[in-house]
């Protein structure tokens, strides 16, 4: 869906980190792990839209948490209160949550700006009164995404320099909280997804779903750029992160 919104605020929250809230024109329904594809420039440089996971979506308000990493995100960070923002979305699927299953431990892991997507999930679970364990990791405290909001959700933190929470990686925290029959949901850089997969693949009864990040062209399934291999090493097909994803059963992804 083509949509647009007006900037309510666009504030710096950490090292290169920003929190943007849009008051959206058309009513929409968004789910955790979905993304919107934002037009950051009015000219042809940069040309493509920029995809962002949704941090939260309430009625006609939509929040993004992003890190400035290049020209596109730099332009987005310059948007001021009242500026119009054109976007497409929400796009993609969502984390599969079985709300009838009240026993399995749900573990939610966010790394880097991938934390935006899992924040949305944790918030939704909290609303439906389903218990979960939330973990967020970053190199240091200043790179932790939306610390205040995550603390409200009872998040366990891991930082490489120990400046917040456990010193180490999210996997160090995961090993402590992991139980048989757990269901893990994650979003973050590929090395993090790989590290979690190495732990979960040894446990038959643990399910692991991740929302994948990929370099996108169109974000609507047409260009077939944002693909990841799904299947087994010598027999796989390329599936589109924007369309068949963003969430995949990690046991089926060749990484």
């Amino acid at each position: 869906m083509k949509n647009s919104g007006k900037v309510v605020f666009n504030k710096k929250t950490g090292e290169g980190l920003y929190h943007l809230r849009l008051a959206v024109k058309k009513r929409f329904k968004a789910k955790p792990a979905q993304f919107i594809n934002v037009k950051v420039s009015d000219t042809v440089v940069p040309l493509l839209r920029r995809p962002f996971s949704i941090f939260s979506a309430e009625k006609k308000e939509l929040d993004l948490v992003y890190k400035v990493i290049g020209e596109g995100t730099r332009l987005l960070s310059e948007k001021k209160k009242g500026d119009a923002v054109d976007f497409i979305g929400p796009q993609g699927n969502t984390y599969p949550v079985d709300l009838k299953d009240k026993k399995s431990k749900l573990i939610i892991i966010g790394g880097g700006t991938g934390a935006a997507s899992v924040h949305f999930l944790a918030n939704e679970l909290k609303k439906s009164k389903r218990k979960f364990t939330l973990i967020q990791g970053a190199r240091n405290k200043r790179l932790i995404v939306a610390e205040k909001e995550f603390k409200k959700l009872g998040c366990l933190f891991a930082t490489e320099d120990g400046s917040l929470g456990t010193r180490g990686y999210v996997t160090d925290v995961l090993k402590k909280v992991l139980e048989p029959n757990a269901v893990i949901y994650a979003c973050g850089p590929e090395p993090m997804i790989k590290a979690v997969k190495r732990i979960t693949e040894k446990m038959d009864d643990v399910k692991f779903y991740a929302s994948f990040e990929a370099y996108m062209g169109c974000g609507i399934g047409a260009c077939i750029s944002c693909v990841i291999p799904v299947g087994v090493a010598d027999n796989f097909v390329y599936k589109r992160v924007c369309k068949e994803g963003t969430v995949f059963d990690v046991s089926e992804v060749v990484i």
Partner: protein
Amino acid sequence: MRVNTTVNIGGLVLKNPVMTASGTFGYGLEFEEYVNLNKLGAIVVKGIALNPVKGNKPQRLVETPAGIMNAIGLQNVGVEAFISEKLPLLKKYSTPVIANIYGTDVDGYIKVAQRLNDSATAAVEINISCPNVKKGGLQFASDKDAIATMMNGIKKVFTRPVIVKLSPNTGNIEEMAQVCEDNGADAVSLINTLVGLSINLKTRRPNIANVFGGLSGPAIKPVALAMVHKVSKKIKIPIIGIGGIMNTTDALEFIVAGASAVQIGTANFVDPSITGIIADGIKSYLDDNGINSITELTGTLEY
């Protein structure tokens, strides 16, 4: 005033000159919610081969100044699945569907065309210019004998218009267009993407896994306009102009340069509604300028 936007591409009558460029519009269905497909002159679908193709390893696309570079590797469902699964879903639209086809050898191209002859495909566009596959594609772009053999073979098995998509990555695109015309092509489309390289200085590695990719978008528009114009001086069959068209003005510039129709590519990724907007824009332009028919504008460049 009721303006006439119809164009005739080798016997195929289009309600307007706005077509989609292969590889940027999926199988059309991906765009249903963004544009009324009935508004388009024609839908050119993603390149189709005899058998399904897995495509290249990612990263497949990278943004460049005023453009993008891609090396998708012609990932596609294969001709059978296209006919049985994709084509029926496009039936409800009045817009003709043109199949872009490719093979790893001359015979492969002919077999796909033969299979498509018994389908609702209105025309075929022969892709002899994809820079991103090891076999087929670009290896034929400058091979006059292969093009002649291919054209003759395809004309025997496919009874509707045959369009050849030409590569800018060849010594002389005018000469190649001439070979197509001489061997029975009903139209030519140009240009396909330009071979490019994008480097990550930090890692000293290419940004695209395939190393080289095809450059498209506004960055290539002047090159495309020049080639369309030069080819229009050389051949009489219709030309379909392609290359960095982002809006109505760009599309009309190609028509003035000598194109009978245009294809919109990269712009679909930025605004999935753009093809419908340009189709409307062309009509308004004719209205506003008192031009009765779009054909009056074709090749009117003066100097």
